[in-house]
């Protein structure tokens, strides 16, 4: 009996101490990890869609709550003034979720670009949605556009052989555009409060 107790106690102690140490380490590194993920994963896409920004897009990011969900807004400045915003949205593609980063020009209410953050589409086929030639068309599109594939009556080009992937990307962009009015309003509040 004594042996059994000893086994349980020692094992529990070891597990407990390790768990405590690890959770401490986790808390200590959490913010740095978030910054790294943003820099390496979202960083390139944000910098592309908000080309011309003069500030550190990662450092100046804003966390807001919209529709009950927490969102990260990447804010672009020029000469100290806010001119653009970018944020992520998700759509359903062929192989899984497609995450896009859409950039907007706040003065013209136009899209500054669309980049794919992550996807699970078929390499060489569905993955075409990431290619420059298939994302260029988004630049300068006004908000009033119909963000559906032209095959469904909308304004977006189709991609041969990658219909589901293109649809998924379109869905993600649509969701982004739907959120824009609220995002813009929130940003204007924040600017008034001294962004």
């Amino acid at each position: 009996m004594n042996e059994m107790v000893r086994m349980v106690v020692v094992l529990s102690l070891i597990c407990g101490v390790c768990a405590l140490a690890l959770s401490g380490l986790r808390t200590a590194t959490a913010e740095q990890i978030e910054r790294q993920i943003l820099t390496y994963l979202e960083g390139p896409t944000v910098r592309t869609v908000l080309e011309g920004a003069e500030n550190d897009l990662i450092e100046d990011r804003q966390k807001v709550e919209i529709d009950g969900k927490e969102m990260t807004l990447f804010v672009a400045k020029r000469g100290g003034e806010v001119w653009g915003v970018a944020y992520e949205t998700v759509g359903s593609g062929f192989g899984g979720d497609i995450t896009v980063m859409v950039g907007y020009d706040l003065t013209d209410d136009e899209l500054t670009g669309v980049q794919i953050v992550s996807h699970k589409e078929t390499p060489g086929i569905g993955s075409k949605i990431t290619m420059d030639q298939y994302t260029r068309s988004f630049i300068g599109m006004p908000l009033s556009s119909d963000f559906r594939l032209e095959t469904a009556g909308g304004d977006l080009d189709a991609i041969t052989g990658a219909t589901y992937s293109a649809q998924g990307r379109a869905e993600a962009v649509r969701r982004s555009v739907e959120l824009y009015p609220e995002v813009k309003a929130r940003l204007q509040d924040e600017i008034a409060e001294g962004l």
Partner: protein
Amino acid sequence: MNLWREFSKGLWRDLPPFRVVLGLCPVLAVTKSAIGGLGMGLAVVFVLTCSNILVSALRHVIPRKVRIASYIVIIASFVVTVELVTQAYMYPLYEMLGIFIPLIVVNCIILGRAEAFASRNGVLASAADGLGIGLGFTMSLTVLGALRELLGAGTLFDKPVMPLIYQEHPFAMMVEAPGAFIALGVLLGLMNAVTATKGT
């Protein structure tokens, strides 16, 4: 107990994975490049040395029946430490090693040393043992990685080394799976030949 002896045996006599055929899984996967091999090697040095020290320190406290479970918890904790630290401060390395960072926990070398050595010897000796074997492993990984990177991509630590013609048409198979197996097999064969002639 000769500390130098405990340390140096990992550098040749018990060199993993060649002299002691253990811990092969990560070897094939991370040695696509020299930096991958080096990175994984250093991670293993950390986990191996730390777990050896802790296991040795607790060797009189841990009951025999739960020793393997205890070792696993200890080793896994150090592995999670490596996971968090690389994610926070060396993100490109974290991405490169990918799933093989958590897989360090099932690297037979570490559990093997804990059971065979650290549980029976003092803390300093165990630390030396861990360091030696870990560094030996790092050497093997880096050499294999450098070889595959050189032949498969013409670069070394991402710097172009081979002549331009080679760069455009490298022996790409070397950075893929077949090249990994064959390179390891050939290196192992070479080491066996060296051992045979030296008589060690």
